[in-house]
């Protein structure tokens, strides 16, 4: 048998969306005085989804672990509550690791979010995940 190979990323897309109630609670818990009107859904489109296993490919942006990600039709996504995340990591490499020690560079970097639309016009996160538009690929 062969060691599992890390997922290969086709594209990354960052989409502003409305925060959920849970997002708002999490932001409030951080003591943020002026909560952002938007959160950002980072859609990581995969060339192929690996088989579902218990061992996981943890996703990192540079050296920072993305603590949670979720499956959607074309790959995985995670939600960024703090816009500073992009300031800190824009252009940094997305990487996978199974043990926090050995890392696999994906060759794909994090893009900055497009300028947010007015809060009232932001899509729901569930709608963002339904869109099947290929994202920009950046190196």
């Amino acid at each position, binding site marked *: *048998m062969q060691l599992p190979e890390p997922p290969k990323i086709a594209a990354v897309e960052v989409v502003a969306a409305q925060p959920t109630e849970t997002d708002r609670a999490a932001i*409030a818990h951080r003591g943020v005085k002026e909560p952002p009107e938007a959160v950002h859904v980072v859609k990581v489109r995969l060339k192929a989804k690996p088989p579902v296993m*218990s*061992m996981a490919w943890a996703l990192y942006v540079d050296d920072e672990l993305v603590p949670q*990600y979720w499956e959607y039709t074309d790959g995985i996504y995670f939600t960024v509550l703090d816009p500073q995340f992009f300031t800190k990591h824009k252009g940094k490499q997305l990487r996978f690791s199974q043990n*926090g020690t050995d890392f696999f560079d994906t060759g794909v970097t994090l893009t900055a979010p497009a300028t947010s639309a007015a809060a009232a016009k932001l899509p729901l996160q569930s709608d963002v995940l339904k869109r099947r538009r290929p994202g920009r690929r950046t190196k």
Partner: protein
Amino acid sequence: MSVAEETAELGNPGLAGNEQFDTLIYGSPPLAYPAALSQYVIYNTPDPAYVTGRINVSAFANLGSATPWPFTNTNVPLNGHVSIPRGRGPFPLAVFAHGNHSPFENSTPGYLYLCQLLASHGIIAATIDVNFLNGFNFGENAGRAIVHLEHLKQFRTWNNTAAHPLHGKVDLNRILIVGHSRGGEAVGHASFFNRLAAIGPVVLDGSAGLGPYRFGLTAAAAIAPTDRQFTPATGPTVVPDSYYIIHGSQDADVFTFEGYHTYERAHAVDLTNPTVSDGKFKAMLWVHKANHNQFNSIWASESAPGAAMPRPSQEQIARVHLGALAQVVLLDRREYFAVLRDHAVATAWDPVGTEIVSQYQNPERIFVQHNQEGLAAPVVSLPVQGSVAVDGLVAVRQLTALVGGAATTTITLRLAWNATGTRLLLLVDPATLPAERYKVMALRVGQSNEATNTANRDQDFTLEVSSGSRTSAFPASSLHRLLFPDPPPFGPAKIVMQTLRLPVARLVECRVDPSDLRSIALVFDRRQTGVIYIGDLQFTN
């Protein structure tokens, strides 16, 4: 008492008991499962007395949107199967949770074979639906833990509801939680969360739906668990309850024995109070040729043909050893601790030829050498006073991940020799070592697959224990086999240490006075060369 004598006195805990029981479904109907999720339709027709509510896990997990669940993470169902002994009870409770797998296959019934075994011994045993967290997700194991605890809460509710068939039948002070794979990681988090009033912004007092918990968990058991896919804000979870882990050497999913790290963090020595114990035990079973999926009767084997033991054998091992654990922690049959302390007690019940490595850490212990002081030269550990002499071998403390995968936090002592007669000698001040208060001298030892160990040959050495002018010698092999590592499906071989337990009574029989112990030596006179890793030399019970 010899192993044979102990076995003769015990019944096989893997065989069905005499209690009659019923198995039924509980669930949260109505849910419009689409055709792709037709395996879950069974939860739409629960036993009428066992209709449950929904819970909101949105603070902990999303549902993968690639699976068409007919609910969201704010109203996930409490579905499960439960085997209930007939009779008045109260009966202890065991609740099993599966791990990550294709959400299009219902993983929940995969532990019914264990539930029905436990029910036949007078235990209410359930297996729960956490499939909605399955998929290509990451970091959701806190959510799995919350779901597990909420199922326990459901049983508490039924137990406290006057008109319910389970009214007064659940012994809420005897609860065992068992999880497999990511569900195995989650039982560690559940054990930790069980004592909390809040997790981040989520208050666990019931006011927002979740909690309160504070159940009487007598143990958490993990089958081939992951580790640290979720990390609490306070750092990696340290399981506060008694902890049991079982893992297979041919696991081709969790192939780095992640749960070893959970095991090491649990009930570890406190360097500031090395004689203080939290009163909990931990035990480990490393099963050669067992794989990941065959612990769940639904999941197809992930192994190449012939690489793993047959499924019936693996299920038999699960029955025997989890059955023994349940006897101990749920039925107060403490005599089954013998199986946890030494897997050889179960040899007659395990499939013929099964090779197993086991560890056991009793809460009552005083360490002579635990090695956690740092990476400097080995010393005798406080409060025992003494010194260490190394004669002809290389003794190096290492922060080595013996089982691969993530970095370890546990230091082990690596001993390498290239000639017979070499030794590691611990000289101790008998006034600081009250060995006579304990029943056993124990240490854990494992051989690596390095070239100086002969492939597929047990390693061996001699333990010499001295008091005054009296010295007795015991081959390690007389206490237990030190197996050569089983080649894994991929990645490096795991070095899993075996606990060796030398009864103090045997020392006394040999006229070694435990109240006047002067030295303990590991003498390498039984193999010309070798490399072993050792740790946790102690007197214990």
